[in-house]
């Protein structure tokens, strides 16, 4: 599971284990019949071309263009004009941007802290093969089926100060305007995202738990370890790779959170939940300052990549040889 979902795996390209006769790499233009007779028919680079061109056009060209646009000024009409470093100096003078970076990190960190223990518990629990657990796990999965938009709209309706749950439980929620305060808005964003994404991460832990060799539990049981000690001394250490995978997903997902902020808080109250991705949208598509928006986007890519690399480094994931060393 870990190597499967991690983009950090070694790019083992194109070498199949099949022992093909050593022929010089045939050109695509060469006669087909002859090649087939000498060895297995191998596809040329032409097969990859359509996808490469398509991906280049709609993903790589924009990625280069975002860097170019960050040095221009463009209002959406006419052509972008070169503006030098104007966007960048403007950005770093804006306290809202600096705050948005911290806020992105805070929301991501809180997300990791809330979701990781929850999804480990649920994942390990649902790894059991009892019938009841399977049925409940299927229900637990439902939030993940809804789009982020749907989840945000649903929770906004649930938390509506006039028609939602807070209106029915004034003793608990006071005036009921949960999204009206900074703390409340941040808490709602963290909890709603935990509600939706815990199933995904518990699925990762479920798979990892099922891959733990039973020998370890048998050995622990012989040593007299009870259920709790087995959990802490066998299950948790064995889930190490899964934790790294799951945390990287949370970090990348957290830093690029956008839909739920737009729908639940609109970056408010004030700019209290204006995280970086929302800040970019606001600059570019609400204030029509596309140059600044592009600069923020570039910043976002750099920060997200850097943090993922740091997580990989700190955890020693890149040096890890697997959690099952010493198990025969």
């Amino acid at each position, binding site marked *: 599971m870990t190597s499967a979902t991690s983009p950090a795996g070694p790019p083992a390209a194109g070498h199949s284990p*099949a022992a093909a006769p050593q022929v010089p790499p045939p050109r695509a233009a060469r006669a087909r019949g002859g090649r087939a007779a000498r060895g297995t028919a191998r596809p*040329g680079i032409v097969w990859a071309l359509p996808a490469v061109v*398509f991906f280049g056009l709609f993903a790589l*060209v924009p990625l280069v263009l975002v860097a170019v646009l960050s040095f221009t000024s463009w209002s959406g009409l006419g052509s972008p004009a070169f503006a030098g470093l104007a966007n960048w100096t403007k950005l770093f003078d804006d306290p809202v941007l600096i705050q948005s970076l911290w806020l992105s990190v805070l929301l991501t960190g809180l997300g990791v802290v809330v979701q990781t223990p929850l999804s480990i*518990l649920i994942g390990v629990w649902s790894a059991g093969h009892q019938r009841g657990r399977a049925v409940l796990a299927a229900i637990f999965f439902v939030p993940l089926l809804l789009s982020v938009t749907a989840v945000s709209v649903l929770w906004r309706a649930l938390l509506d100060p006039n028609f939602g749950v807070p209106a029915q439980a004034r003793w608990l929620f006071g005036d009921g305007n949960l999204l009206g305060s900074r703390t409340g808005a941040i808490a709602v964003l963290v909890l709603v995202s935990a509600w939706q994404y815990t199933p995904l991460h518990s699925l990762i832990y479920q798979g990892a738990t099922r891959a733990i060799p039973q020998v370890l539990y048998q050995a622990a049981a012989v040593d007299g370890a009870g259920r709790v000690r*087995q959990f802490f001394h066998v299950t948790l250490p064995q889930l190490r790779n899964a934790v790294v995978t799951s945390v990287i*997903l949370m970090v990348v997902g957290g830093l690029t959170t956008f839909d739920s902020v737009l729908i639940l808080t609109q970056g408010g109250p004030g700019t209290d939940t204006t995280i970086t991705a929302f800040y970019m949208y606001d600059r570019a598509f609400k204030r029509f300052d596309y140059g600044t928006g592009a600069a923020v986007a570039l910043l976002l890519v750099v920060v997200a990549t850097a943090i993922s690399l740091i997580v990989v480094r700190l955890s020693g994931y890149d040096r890890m040889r697997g959690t099952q060393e010493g198990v025969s």
Partner: protein
Amino acid sequence: MSVPARTSPAGGARPAAARRTARRSTSAGSAVGARPNYLAGVGAFLWLCVVGLPVYVMLGATVRTRPDYTAGGPLSLPGTFSLHNFVRDFQGGFGRYFLNTVVVTASVVALVLVLVPPLAFAIVRGRGRPTSAVFRMFLLGLAVPAQAVIVPMFYLISKAGLYDNLIGVILPTAAFCLPVCTLILTGTMRDIGGELFEAMAIDGADTKRVFLQLVVPLSRGGLSTIVVFSALQAWNGFLFPLVLTQSESTKVLTLGLYNFQTQYGVDIPALLAAVVLSTLPVLLVYLFARRALVQGLMGVGGK
């Protein structure tokens, strides 16, 4: 990206043989056969409430009238039963949004199915530097979030005259499905045994025949996963439609929900009925093809 065989959240989807072995070996995580874990049971019940209550409110509200919902609050039992909310949603344009979403989803899936299998075939079976460079490019693509390119995408799509056109949504959505789909499908194709290729070669099959008669049929598992993955991406996509379309005639479901909320946010039952409507196809797939859906969703996680 290949998902382990037993990640399905429900046992029902697994083949009977696998289930039997699973039962014979003691369960992972906690020693089965020992006393039942009551504490875990209580925890599971609490989490069931956390997950279930919002879902209950959502489903309950769809059949309730607005006065009933307002008076009774979200959590009370439905006092009325009417399908008026759905009627209202369709009058509000949700039929159109639904159709647009179907068009976008079908086109994205078709594009992915045309582009990815030959690409994965070339990566897995091709020789030399170019193919490994291509694979590395797509691996790097995994790290690029859609937000990063949304500004230049708006620029490009506008310049191409595709702004406010469904094609302008379809193309970037499909492009951003490619890295994950390539990773999934190359994983599946690597599992095809080399001796099968040799057998085809002895038969004198050319590359095209190897692809169509050997690789494609043996990659069905991976193909169904990438279909589900890209369909979910397209169905739930929000950012590209938000930025690249504006008129009523090009609106997709997610955007329709967002607009509905900002404009008629007080009519919560109709809003929640629209949420149910937008999720219905995914729920149906979950009921009938749970395994494929879960694997597609894990593809989402692999992003």
